[in-house]
């Protein structure tokens, strides 16, 4: 027997089922990044002057920055000049209805199990489909418009609702925030925009589905969600990519604004291509996600991260208003050679603010999983409370897990509670389940899903089922 039981090894030896690429006629810029490329992107999109200027400022800021120190990540240097910063599926100048969607794109999404035809879709989820950073279609627009909800591609929002975009763009994640946020601000090509007016409860789940298709392209989307006073929205994000030998760069920015008494629930199921068994290929996923919660507002991040060669993201909440609430529920899986460095930042500014962090890290194969979380309570944050729970699950003997909490409390009335645990999926557990008639795959899936239960409970129903399945697949061949 080797260091790891053959049973577990076999279970972890899986394949990526979304690894196909679609032959789309694509408009693609030559690799390389300079001011002209930034101008080209802005021009291609017919953007107003103020946005171009904003991009150029971001580009200048990016050039002056150093790449982050990779801490726990083992990463090949990224050559930013070898990447193409603009790729868009070619046909269709403007889309008036779903029927105008390129059939090949529609087929691609069908293959992914996400039909774009409204009749065929889940009746309560509106989808914005993004291919290679460009929004190709948004469904259920009319229904949403009736409620006053704006849900469209970022480019369309720039055209149709420039004031809203201008007011909020960069208001939560300024372009100077970090290296990848600056890069994104300079070259972002599209993404989703969503606006919920005062007092409106969004009548359906909003969802963006991101698909990387082209080769050698970076994907840089921006999502901006603004929830006015007393509104509610639940937003879902899903991601896949084809199998490629090269690593592909994905650097997105998500900004959430929850005004007084508003609630934003943001859920992600990230399943970018993780690379092969030897760590060749896969997506580098560097994402900046942050929300600002005003008085009595609530922002809740739920993420299930099973893909990408490298995941580097810390969905955060600025608890600005009194009594605002921040939540972070995370499942991060690292299998094969995957590395995940993820966690959250909860910044308490208002009084009586509270935050909850539940993180479940699963390491399998040679995977490495790091939880990195910051809880910060400023002097103004009277009676702020945080509860953090970080659990790590190890499958096999070659993987690793780290938990790195940072706690800064400037107000003596602040309360911070931190719990951490590490456990292993034992042969004993698998054997016990098998003695009761379950296959190895079913047993592993059951054990791992049990470990993630608190987080899956936070996902909307359809997503919870999908997340469980995904986790099983990622483990089974990646575990069953």
């Amino acid at each position, binding site marked *: 027997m080797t260091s790891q039981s053959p049973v577990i090894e076999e279970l972890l030896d899986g394949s990526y089922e979304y690894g196909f690429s679609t032959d789309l006629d694509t408009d693609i810029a030559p690799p390389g990044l300079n001011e002209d490329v930034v101008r080209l992107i802005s021009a291609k999109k017919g953007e107003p002057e103020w946005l171009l200027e904003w991009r150029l400022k971001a580009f200048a800021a990016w050039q002056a920055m150093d790449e982050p120190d990779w801490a726990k990540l083992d990463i090949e240097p990224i050559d930013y000049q070898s990447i193409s910063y603009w790729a868009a599926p070619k046909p269709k100048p403007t889309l008036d209805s779903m029927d105008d969607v390129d059939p090949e794109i529609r087929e691609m999404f069908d293959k992914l199990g996400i039909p774009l035809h409204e009749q065929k879709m889940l009746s309560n989820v509106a989808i914005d489909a993004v291919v290679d950073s460009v929004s190709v279609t948004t469904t259920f627009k009319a229904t949403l418009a009736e409620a006053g909800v704006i849900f469209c591609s970022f480019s369309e929002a720039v055209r149709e609702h420039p004031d809203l975009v201008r007011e909020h763009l960069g208001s939560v994640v300024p372009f100077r925030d970090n290296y990848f946020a600056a890069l994104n601000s300079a070259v972002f090509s599209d993404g989703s925009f969503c606006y919920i007016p005062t007092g409106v409860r969004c009548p359906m789940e909003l969802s963006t589905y991101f698909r990387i298709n082209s080769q050698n392209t970076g994907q840089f989307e921006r999502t901006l969600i603004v929830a006015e006073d007393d509104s509610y929205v639940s937003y879902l994000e899903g991601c896949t990519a084809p199998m490629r030998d090269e690593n592909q760069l994905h650097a997105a920015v998500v900004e959430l604004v929850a005004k007084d008494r508003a609630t934003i629930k943001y859920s992600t199921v990230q399943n970018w291509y993780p690379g092969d068994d030897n760590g060749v290929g896969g997506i580098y996923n560097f994402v900046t996600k942050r929300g600002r919660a005003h008085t009595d507002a609530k922002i809740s991040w739920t993420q299930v991260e099973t893909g990408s060669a490298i995941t580097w993201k810390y969905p955060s909440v600025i608890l600005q208003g009194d009594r605002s609430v921040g939540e972070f529920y995370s499942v991060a899986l690292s299998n094969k050679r995957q590395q995940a460095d993820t966690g959250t930042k909860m910044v308490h500014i208002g009084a009586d603010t509270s935050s909850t962090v539940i993180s479940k890290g699963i390491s399998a194969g040679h995977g490495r999983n790091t939880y990195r979380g910051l809880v910060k309570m400023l002097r103004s944050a009277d009676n702020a409370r945080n509860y953090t729970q970080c659990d790590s699950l190890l499958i096999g003997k070659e993987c690793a897990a780290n938990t790195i909490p940072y706690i800064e409390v400037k107000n003596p009335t602040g309360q911070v509670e931190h719990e951490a645990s590490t456990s292993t999926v034992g042969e004993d557990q698998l054997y016990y389940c*098998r*003695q*009761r*008639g379950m296959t*190895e795959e079913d047993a592993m899936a059951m054990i791992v899903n*049990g470990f993630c239960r608190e987080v899956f409970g936070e996902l909307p129903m359809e997503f919870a089922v999908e997340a469980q399945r995904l986790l099983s697949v990622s483990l089974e061949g990646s575990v069953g």
Partner: protein
Amino acid sequence: MLHVENLTVSIGDKRILRGLDLDVRPGEVHAIMGPNGSGKSTFAHALAGREGYDVGGTATLDGADLLEMEPEERAAAGVFMGFQYPVEIPGVNNMYFLRTALNSVRQARGEDEVSAREFLEVAKRAMQLVDMNPDFLQRSVNAGFSGGEKKRNEILQMAVMEPRLAVLDETDSGLDIDALKVVASGVHALRGPERSMVVITHYQRLLEYITPDFVHVLVDGRIVESGDSSLALHLDDHGYAQFLAVAPGDEQRSLAATRS
């Protein structure tokens, strides 16, 4: 129905079972007693299919070769093992676990799955049998259960799975007097003409409730004595001393000497 012949088990270069013979006919209950470390649990696991054992000899259930099967195939064939140390599975709902287990064996046998509603009925009946609080169905599998509660849960599972052969490894250990009665009567109720049981125990007490058809004494990886339920009483009084440090082949003589 269960036929075991010259069964040997080694772990690494340690020999634990050294040629064990046992025949169990339909409806029979056989008790196995023996000192700590004599190989009782190892025998149970060898029947259930635990990995890492080097197994020789024969073990068949209704003629089918158990030793060739994966653990889940043995379960489908009707083997149920009550664990001496039931395993905790945090976050997995006990009821869901039970239903998945039942449906897994049903599926493997080509039977229809039971619906959630049908299962509820099955579970309810089983719960009554072991006098278990329904709250336990909503908790995680064995997580935070007391020692006795875990054992009850094993019998609950057995009641749901309705096995052909139940191998119960020290199901009575760690039970208080009342729980012992409940579990024992539960086991007794599950006896049937088509179901056989191998009950591993250290205590004569359990056998008062479940009168076994045969009692076997396992010492040092071998059955050194078999008899009816009176053998258990004898062991209770005299312990295993007479079987220890006995050269192979001498067992009968020395036993006869102490019993006379």
